[in-house]
């Protein structure tokens, strides 16, 4: 089913005249993870808001064994699945946070925690687990993120790669080696995106990750598979709003049970506090 036939269709839906009332979702984030202050963002680097406290409540615990993420997973934004065979579309995303940068909303498909910054052999992600994606199962458009959870890894700079299955179902693909460990690549709540092997456009599964050398401290890091939904720019004042009809090319579908999460690429070192707001419409 097409998202919207025309602008009148969108307005009608937004003002309650469609087949279902629109969902306007509010997420408040405070600069705390669990019982402690969150790590300050670093300019140019990505910060995960996955474990940030706020409303809805997020306990801040590190993820454990590999698992599919859904709208019921701790940290996910509230979501009501569409009914009647309809689809759900994100038609706007807005935020007011404490600093400039970019805000990414993504569907967090799968995650694992408890990986070590001192192990230099392949660490299992999905390998042998039997856990497979339940959304975006072709893998097209999915990306791999490494997330440092609540305990930083070590100060020795090294690299990390992942072994994965791509969007064509070809196993044994290897991401480009990227830095991990040392300043800016070790702190809690940091995200390190893993570039895919040449020619690949997505990820069906991540089998293992491997550090080239120890970072010196085990810490706690993990891997997640993300499907980007939308991103917006946050100005110098930390505010941004974009609609996806007259702004970027089109509204993006949000699948049933989506685990909507947020990541922030900092242009500021201000601790992240504020509000995120997005609108979903059924069609």
């Amino acid at each position, binding site marked *: 089913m097409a998202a919207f036939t*025309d*602008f*009148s269709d*969108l*307005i*009608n*839906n*937004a*003002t*309650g*005249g*469609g087949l279902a*009332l*629109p969902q*306007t979702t*509010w997420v*408040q984030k*405070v*600069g*705390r993870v*669990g019982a402690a*202050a969150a790590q300050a963002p670093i300019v140019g680097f990505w910060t995960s808001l996955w474990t940030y*406290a*706020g*409303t*809805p*409540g*997020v*306990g*801040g*615990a590190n993820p454990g064994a590999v698992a599919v993420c859904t709208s019921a997973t*701790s940290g996910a934004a*509230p979501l009501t699945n569409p009914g009647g065979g309809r689809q759900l579309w994100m038609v*706007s995303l*807005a935020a*007011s*946070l*404490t*600093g*400039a940068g970019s805000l990414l909303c993504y569907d967090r498909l799968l995650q694992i925690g408890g990986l070590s910054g001192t192990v230099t052999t392949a660490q299992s992600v999905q390998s042998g687990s039997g856990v497979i994606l339940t959304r975006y199962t072709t893998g097209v458009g999915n990306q791999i993120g490494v997330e440092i959870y609540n305990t930083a890894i070590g100060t020795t700079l090294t690299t990390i790669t992942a072994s994965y299955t791509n969007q064509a179902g070809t196993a044994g693909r290897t991401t480009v080696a990227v830095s991990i460990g040392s300043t800016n690549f070790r702190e809690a709540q940091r995200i390190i995106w893993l570039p895919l092997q040449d020619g690949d456009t997505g990820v069906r599964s991540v089998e293992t990750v491997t550090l080239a050398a120890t970072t010196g401290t085990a810490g706690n890091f993990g891997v997640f598979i993300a499907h980007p939904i939308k991103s917006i720019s946050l*100005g*110098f*004042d*930390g*505010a*941004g*709003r*974009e609609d*996806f*009809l*007259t*702004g970027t090319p089109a509204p993006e579908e949000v699948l049933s049970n989506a685990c909507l999460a947020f990541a922030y690429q900092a242009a*500021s070192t*201000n*601790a992240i*506090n*504020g*509000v995120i*707001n997005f*609108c979903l419409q059924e069609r």
Partner: protein
Amino acid sequence: MGIATLAAYRAALSAPHQIISCVRTVSYLASVDSWTSLWQSGGTGGVGAAPATTRACNSSTLGAIAQWPAPTAGNYLRLISYQIVPCGFNRTNTGSSIVIFDRLVDHAGAVANVATAQTTNLPTAALTRETTGDGVWAFIEVYGAIGATTTTVTISYTNQAGVAGRTSLAQTIGGSFRTAAQNLIPIPLQDGDTGVRSVESITLAATTGTAGNFGIVLAKPWALLNSKLHQGWSVDMLRGMREAPRLTDSACLWAAAPSLGGTTFTTAPIGFTLNLARVDS
């Protein structure tokens, strides 16, 4: 049905059923991790005060931005456009957004120099709107200046499912740039909770050094008014707005500014206009 066509929307923009124009004087700006409540600022709706104990708020509560005639049964008012002039913000990292809430319940009488569970004037008054508590946020609003010693605060509350004894995550209270009246401290909820139905007690981990006066505010966000830095902005469905939130009859509209970076500021009035259309859905 809603506003069925673009032509009807344009007509509604030209002649909204209700126009709420507001100016609030911004006399203080919080910093770091506190929001700023404009409840106690002067301006349209009057200067809101701390409640004597705890109360359910409505559009007649002193400090509420506006009152309006309720639409006839079966009809609703929906926000279809707004204008904002954010001249009130000017921290080192200036702000340009405010959130309009429905201030459901407020409370006062807690002090910031006690490190045991406080139940003065608690539990909070029963919600008269959003009665499940789903989507209801909890804040601490400072009415009388608290101390300069930084500590943390938690609340014991009943969540959106009616489960009592929930405990919020610790949130910073007291300390530099967090002591003055109008500080609005967002309270992060226990894992899995999506809202607050009532608050039963407040506990500081340690004294901030000064008693002051603070209390709980339970509120549901209604609209996020973004602007552009240093300039006024008009937003409607042709220019970035994709939701048309329904305005609840008797809502106590209240403006608050999300956290700003920086530690110095100047202040000025902030003005905004809310344009609403009447629809039957």
